[in-house]
């Protein structure tokens, strides 16, 4: 098994893409889950504000999602551009 420079670079890019998206998915997954858990609590305490609370949860989750999207962008750059 001979390893050439270009092959090694491509292998590193593919491994990097997997690690970027794999590790990058952990934080948003946990963080968005926390936001949703607290939204459930808030609706339980104050069911009349369900609409406002759902909106607040979604905005908060969208911000938490951004790092997951950065990971996806980096993974796609490593796969198709670099």
């Amino acid at each position: 098994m001979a390893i050439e420079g270009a092959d090694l670079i491509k292998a590193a890019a593919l491994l990097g893409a997997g690690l970027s998206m794999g590790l990058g998915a952990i934080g948003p997954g946990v963080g968005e889950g926390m936001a949703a858990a607290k939204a459930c609590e808030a609706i339980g305490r104050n069911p009349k504000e369900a609409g406002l609370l759902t909106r607040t949860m979604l905005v908060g989750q969208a911000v938490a999602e951004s790092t997951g999207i950065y990971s996806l962008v980096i993974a796609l750059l490593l796969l198709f551009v670099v």
Partner: protein
Amino acid sequence: MTLLGMDNLTLTHIAAYIGGAAAMGLGAIGAATGEGFTASRASEAIARSQENAGDIIKNMLVGQAISESASIFSLVIAILLLFLEVSDPGMVKAASLLAAGVCMGFGAIGSGVGAGIPAGRSCLAIARQPAVSARITTNMLIGTAVCQTPAIFAMVVALILLFKPTGGLAAFPTWAALVGAGLSTGLAAIGSGYGGGMAAGASCEGVSRQPETTTAVTTTMLVGQAVAQTPSVFGLLISFILMFRSFPESTTLSASVGLLSAGLCMGLGGIGPGIGNGLTAEGAVRWVARRVDYSGDLMRIMLVGQAVSQSTAIYAMVVSLVLIFVV
């Protein structure tokens, strides 16, 4: 192809023994931690309510037995790896056996810890509301059983890897595909097992606080747990593709690393969403018990929140599929 001058049989045996050690070593972590948590909560429960010690100890032992099953799966896989007759030794078989051990080892962690949580919290629940102890134990049994599914997925993948005939497969890049298959289901099972346990723990507490809400609480728990299992189902899907697709021979490093990376990406990417979905389900179940008249609203917000939390697992699956089929 020989590695470090070893013949095929030596290489395969080394891989099987390391795989067996990984299966049991990693597989012991979850069950032991979960059962310790259960015992600590049972002690606390007996301190609060000595007259119900019998019910609490019985409940603790039943819960611990279920939590133990994840590490029993690991033990079975480890023993198979140690004593299996290898008919087609070689590099692909070696990779397959190593992957089987790693898959089962990682896959047992989440389910072991997860099943310990409802087992422990149900002991406290019995101390608080001894009159409904049978209902609490039943609810705990349903919750802990669902927690075991990720470990069962890992065992299925490990058994396929153990007995898959490898003769005639191209060594490169098939070895990487099989290791990736083990990592994908094994790692993704961690989050789902733990997340399912959090939801089940809250439901045991909910049943004891408001016994009349049992039906709504159990339903919400099951829906929440089902969503929390999806990352491990994605992991299983990627594993099946990696195990059963035949890859053309390619001795380039990038072909092998790409498939390994696909498994690693889905495995790691499933951990966070599994835990996050469990946190959400825990919050929803707790509040369904307190405000059962708003259980519909709570179920809706739980599912919307879980769907958003799930999105990163879907990104990881997309990147894995691109790594397998496109690049």
